[in-house]
């Protein structure tokens, strides 16, 4: 069983942390993973930086820009990840825009993911229909889970379709917004969380976008299997350094 499916089976209040590889320093990738593992997060999302991250807010944009300036490349990420499974057992997914993956070669990309011990992919600009048509065979061949997003605007019909093609969890985007931390959720968001929960999907849900403190984390856990945090974590390590990861995580989870 894939580590992702496992973690959802065994844990609740899952905290999944996103970071951009190559940021703040080019070689911080494994260091950050070690810190996250030590901090007892349940899942890690490694961002493959892209020049045009159009679903991301300023924090992740900036981190991607710096990562690329630092010299981050797809090949280098895989080289760094060669040591991945020596340092952690928790599920690790790569989150990357479609174009860099396409240029690398989708199949080659998946193969290397498999080889270094990556468990799944989130590709925000790869629509489920195209995935279904052209790529599902490849991810399945390499045993990679594919996770898709849903938003407050996604129709029920489409949610069921996404549920069908997702494997691991469904990334429930909390609001109409690009990434970036907020202090709380409003009632419309809560209604939306409730509505989705009622749909009894086959995949568990993780709530992402706008989570950055204990309050939003707790609320997310109430209405789903857990939360994904990106911008808030990146801001934290930018300010306090990679070594302060544990402080951040304990503040979130308390």
């Amino acid at each position, binding site marked *: 069983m894939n580590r992702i499916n496992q973690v959802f089976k065994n844990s609740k209040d899952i905290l999944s942390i996103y970071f951009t590889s190559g940021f703040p320093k080019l070689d911080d990738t494994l260091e950050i993973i070690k810190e996250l593992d030590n901090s007892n997060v349940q899942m890690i999302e490694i961002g493959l930086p892209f020049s045009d991250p159009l*679903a991301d807010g300023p924090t992740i944009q900036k981190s991607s820009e710096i990562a690329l300036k630092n010299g981050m490349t797809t090949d280098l990420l895989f080289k760094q990840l060669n040591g991945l499974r020596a340092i952690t057992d928790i599920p690790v997914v790569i989150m990357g825009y479609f174009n860099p993956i396409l*240029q*690398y070669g989708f199949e080659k990309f998946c193969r290397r993911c498999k080889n270094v011990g990556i468990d799944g992919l989130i590709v925000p600009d*790869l629509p489920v229909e*195209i995935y279904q048509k052209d790529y599902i065979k490849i991810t399945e061949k390499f045993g990679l889970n594919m996770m898709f997003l849903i938003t407050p*605007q996604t129709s029920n019909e489409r949610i069921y379709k996404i549920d069908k093609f997702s494997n691991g969890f469904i990334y429930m985007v909390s609001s*109409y917004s690009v990434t970036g931390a907020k202090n709380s959720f409003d009632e419309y968001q809560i209604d939306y969380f409730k509505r989705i929960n009622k749909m009894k999907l086959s995949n568990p849900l993780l709530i992402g976008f706008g989570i950055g403190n204990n309050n939003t984390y707790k609320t997310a856990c109430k209405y789903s299997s857990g939360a994904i945090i990106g911008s808030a974590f990146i801001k934290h390590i930018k300010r306090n350094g990679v070594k302060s990861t544990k402080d951040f995580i304990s503040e979130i989870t308390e």
Partner: protein
Amino acid sequence: MENFNINKDGFYGDFGGAFIPEMLQPNIDELQKNYLKITESTDFKKEFNKLLTDYVGRPTPLYFAKRLSNKYKTKIYLKREDLCHTGAHKINNTIGQIILAKKLGKKRIIAETGAGQHGVATATVCALMGIECVVYMGEIDISRQAPNVARMKMLGAKVRSATSGSRTLKDATNEAIRDWIANPIDTHYIIGSVVGPHPYPDMVARFQSVIGYETKKQLLEMEQTDKPTHVIACVGGGSNAAGLFYPFLNDLDVEIVCVEAAGKGVNSGESAATSILGTEGIIHGSKTLLMQTQDGQITEPYSISAGLDYPGIGPMHANLFKSNRGKFISIDDDDAMKWGLMLSQIEGIIPAIETSHAFAVLEKMDFNRDDIIIFNCSGRGDKDLDTYINYFKL
């Protein structure tokens, strides 16, 4: 027979589609489902045509350029999009999209702009309809295109600075998309060229196709045939070209010529000749040719003309290139500037620098006496006067 139009899945051959984040899916779905239903309705057509006629100033003339024709010993016609309200073809599309947006019940418009022509055209139709307008523009473009920024503000639009990435058109587009993600219900995004996710390339091409259809009709009156031998246009994103080519796409007797900006030279590292320098990939939601690193990072193009300085081309053009249906020629800054001056002095028409690129093919291709060549005179040069002045030390 090959068909160079879009297919039912939103692709031109291998290119096109809608590679968009889930957050945009409802908006794009709404458009995909409605765009043809609305734009093909009598109601829409009536309003669209009325505004093109009474407000934009269509039909624009098809002008026989006598002195230029004599000089190059062939028949040269200029389709005068420079005479459109706001000074370029861009407004054909914004008129279409604003009516569509109204019919979809949208209350707010966003747009991206590079040189500012599309931003001005968008701000204009928003003023016309009394709809709120936000235009994203790269921080660098804001400072180098001050007059168009002023025009947008005169027209009541908010101009927001895109401060990420290379702070030019590509980043303004990213910012507009991010705004749309954050405002999916009341906002319509007016894209300025035949780029972006399906149905934008097809929708914009259809709005611009008035250029080609008028040309056919006018040519029939002037030359007793509605078939030119060549249709020639500059390609930034590709909308003015798509508009002129549209009725001729599947008529193989008509040679299609796309003119790209070579910048300081195709191999100089400062160029925007996407067909030569680009490879297949995804940009702004569309599979097409684009300039990128081996790693799939989108690179910053360069051209003296801000409107050609986009790292991709529309999927229709990518398909014209790959299938060899279109001939692609790239023209460097110096040649373009020379032709801007030439057209000014031989025909009394100061073209936009984008447009100037197209004319430079007169010295790159051979034409026969009887050829009928249509140039899309996509815009006027008023916005480029500073660049011309500095270049020629006038």
